[in-house]
């Protein structure tokens, strides 16, 4: 145990009791640059279809539904990952992901990937990237978040849309933490079927990348 650990416990030790209650005023709100562009890429489409890979957030469903008049599929990959970690079947996750999405090829206009890739092993993230690329329509958009520093806590972040330029970050307990911090070139390789449309590094060290599927 190092000197700092004796002075103050590690962050992940503090975070062991993390009841996921309703959002509070303590949940930090961060600016987002890419969400507006993501929305702009979909507003021109008639009756777009959205795929949300995060947990169900009622206000997000209402927000995207009202903004876009879209159909939203909520496929909570975080919950799938949690289940596989708890069951000790993480090795089966890539195969599971390949069978996970019932959507037809090129049937989805937008994918909200959030930061799920940071929590997956390389084979699982590769499987996920292949699947979302498969279901995305040509010129469809994918919004992904990627961390830049290796955090020591084991918590997911629920991104709650406040408006087009603000997201509330609400953390909740995860079965395991982030697996690796991907370099930009790793991200590009991972989503090799897509091209980067916009990329932002935010003040909170989160990278927001908006991908588009080539037409």
């Amino acid at each position: 145990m190092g000197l700092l650990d004796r002075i103050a416990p590690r962050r992940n030790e503090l975070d062991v009791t993390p009841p996921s209650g309703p959002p509070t005023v303590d949940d930090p709100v961060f600016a987002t640059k890419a969400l507006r562009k993501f929305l702009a890429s979909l507003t021109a489409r008639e009756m777009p279809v959205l795929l949300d890979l995060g947990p169900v957030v009622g206000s997000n469903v209402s927000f995207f539904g009202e903004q876009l008049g879209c159909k939203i599929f909520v496929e909570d990959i975080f919950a799938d990952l949690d289940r596989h970690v708890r069951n000790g079947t993480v090795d089966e996750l890539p195969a599971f992901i390949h069978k996970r999405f019932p959507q037809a090829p090129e049937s989805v206009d937008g994918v909200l990937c959030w930061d799920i890739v940071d929590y997956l092993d390389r084979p699982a993230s590769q499987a996920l990237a292949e699947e979302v690329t498969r279901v995305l329509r040509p010129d469809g958009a994918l919004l992904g978040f990627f961390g830049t520093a290796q955090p020591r806590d084991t918590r997911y972040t629920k991104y709650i849309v406040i408006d087009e330029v603000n997201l509330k970050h609400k953390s909740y307990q995860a079965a395991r933490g982030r697996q690796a911090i991907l370099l930009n070139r790793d991200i590009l390789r991972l989503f090799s079927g897509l091209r980067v449309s916009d990329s932002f590094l935010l003040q909170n060290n989160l990278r927001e990348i908006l991908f588009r599927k080539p037409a």
Partner: protein
Amino acid sequence: MWKRDEAVRPASGQPTAAPQPPAPISAGGPAPRSEAGYQMEKDIVNIGKSVVIKGELNGSEDLTIEGHVEGTIQLRDHVLTIGPNGKIKAQVFAKSVIVLGEVTGNVTASEKVDIRDNGSVDGDIISPRVAIAEGAHFRGSVDMQRKPGAAQAATAKPAATPTPQAQEKAAAAPQPQAAGQRVGA
């Protein structure tokens, strides 16, 4: 068939000369009612928690379900409330749907679907407005597409071709019996 909601009756109302409704299905002694209370009672119908319905459920008044329903529920112009004890395995069509219990099957509403805290929906939702509370369970898709009269059309034609997911969910839910409803405790 349906239990009249005893809970909405004012306890201290005066008895009226209005005709008495049929005896409720579930136990509970009659209470004196005012005219206003009787009118309110006429508009809110309750399926008690001991009631099981299998088949097609149609209605033209607001309905609260605390029991089990399997099959199809249609309340085209009215509000359907699935109470905390309610368990539904059915395709649901209504003006508004409020879920506090469990629903397995697709839900179509012409106005709003509201999944409250501890409510659970396992199926696809079609509605122009959807509210999902923190703590609610939802698994499926939400269709809020601004098709003119999409939800109304779906409400009017519940037998329209379902999506593959809806077909899977419908297959998982027990099939309604051909000869209408069976009510039992």
